């Protein structure tokens, strides 16, 4: 080696600067990412501390008493379950089937572009506007009245575009080469979808649907206008308390009323209600993650 060429791995000023920048960059990104945990921990911690005196199984199963200043939250809890399940039972099939059409069949023509545009814009509509629409369309025009049905339909329309989007994403993650291999042997599009596309995107599709549970459970405005009620007397622990044409209580709405509308509520009750709402949503999200992990472990390519 000639004496004036530096050895290959010597540490020059340039190399040192490069390493320094790399270290700084890594830490900046890491700190920002780690900061994501802080709000969640603070919220959960604060709520738990404040809610502690009321957090018992009895609180969940009891009905509110003494003008909602004491007692439990069972009617609201059951109402939320009703709203979430009925709304997703409506929006999931429609959204998934629509997404299959858009992703697997639709050609790039003006009509399908209109559909795409509609999906995107529907996703951007504020929930209070959905609420007004639900009030006009379902409560009055369709004569469903203030009812679980009206509220669920409104929530369904609100969750629909997101389900379409997440389902399309799941479908698009199946490699095109799989589809081409099927087409090459004379399979129709439907045979291809059934044999290869759906089985390999179902985990992503379900995850997308389940994540909409938290949205449907948390929204207040759409149900306040269409079917959620201030107070409704039902039996303690009764799971089949409501009919489709009745109004119901809901956790999000209940939280709003006892926090702002009812004087003299025991201080820990609103916090405990929030814990139940948050806990249910986190539980459902955890289930979605578990499902995804389980399905991923059976990944086939």
């Amino acid at each position, binding site marked *: 080696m000639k004496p004036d060429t530096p050895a290959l791995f010597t540490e020059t000023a340039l190399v040192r600067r490069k390493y320094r920048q790399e270290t700084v960059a890594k830490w900046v990104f890491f700190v920002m990412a780690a900061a994501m945990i802080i709000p969640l921990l603070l919220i959960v911690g604060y709520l738990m501390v404040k809610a502690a005196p009321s957090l018992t199984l009895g609180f969940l199963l009891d009905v509110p008493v003494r003008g909602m200043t004491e007692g439990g939250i069972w009617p609201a809890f059951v109402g939320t379950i009703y709203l979430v399940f009925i709304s997703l039972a409506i929006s999931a099939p429609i959204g998934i089937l629509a997404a299959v059409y858009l992703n697997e069949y639709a050609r790039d023509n003006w009509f399908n572009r209109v559909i795409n545009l509609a999906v995107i814009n529907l996703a951007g509509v504020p929930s209070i506007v959905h609420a007004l629409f639900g009030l006009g369309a379902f409560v009055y025009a369709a004569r469903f009245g203030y009812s679980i049905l009206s509220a669920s339909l409104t929530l369904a329309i609100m969750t629909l575009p997101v389900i379409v989007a997440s389902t399309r994403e799941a479908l698009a993650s199946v490699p095109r080469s799989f589809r081409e291999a099927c087409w090459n042997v004379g399979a129709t599009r439907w045979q291809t979808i059934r*044999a290869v596309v759906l089985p390999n995107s179902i985990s992503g599709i379900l995850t997308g649907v389940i994540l909409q549970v938290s949205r449907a459970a948390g929204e207040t405005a759409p149900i306040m206008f269409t079917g959620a009620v201030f107070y409704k007397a039902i039996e303690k622990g009764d799971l089949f308390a409501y009919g489709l044409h009745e109004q119901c209580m809901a956790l999000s709405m209940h939280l709003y009323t006892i926090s702002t509308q009812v004087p003299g509520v025991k201080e820990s009750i609103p916090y405990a209600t929030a814990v139940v709402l948050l806990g249910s949503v986190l539980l459902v999200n955890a289930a979605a993650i578990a499902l995804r992990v389980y399905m991923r472990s059976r990944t*086939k390519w």
Partner: protein
Amino acid sequence: MTRPKHVEVRDLRLAYGTKEVIHGITFDIHRHEILGVIGPAQSGKTSLLRCLNRTIDFTPEAHVSGIVKVDGEEVRRTRDVYGLRRKIGMVAPLPVGLPISIYDNVAFAPRCAGMSRKADLDAIVEQCLRQAALWEEVKDRLSSLGTKLSGGQQQRLTIARALSHQPEILCLDEFSIAIDPVTTMRIEDVLKELRSHMTVILVTNLTQQARRLADRTMFLWNGDIIELDSNAVIFSDTPKDRRTHDYVNGIFG
């Protein structure tokens, strides 16, 4: 030598959007011959195959004109495009094991065609896997996933799948680029056996492969046929076109 025509192509043009990639080519493929198709990248070889089985339909911006006849039937007018595709076996450059069991990979096409009796399916699966020289390696694990096989095995699985709908024409599109030389030679042996009852279109980057296997070879370049003749001419020192000679001998840039 006039042999029955299996595929007739007349003035075939193909454009993607405004860019024409095949400029009106005309040729015939005889029944039970192996036709080699050679040519550099972007010369329209894969697009040509996709015109034959009409999977070009899945590319919305593609415009096809001209006539392609398979067994005397014009493919763009056929009523049964799925039947047409079953008549043509297609093997893509990269092996694609479908994420279903090995058995289902091969049984998929017959099932799509409406076959459901277990005994029939069993027979086809075994026959096709044997033809693709894969049976001995997988016969004890037919229920494991096609995607878990090695690359070379997956390519043979792809070939088995292409044979599973009992095609009359087998198109191989650069089948050897993702597999090792030993497997390549095994598949080439398979092709030599298939030629007795099947027409084979062998698209390849390896001119020597066309020389080894094909009866006639077509040199396609930039969407035009430069030369199509028997291997004796194409790979001689004096093909009709100077460019064929240069390409075959690796002089061509």
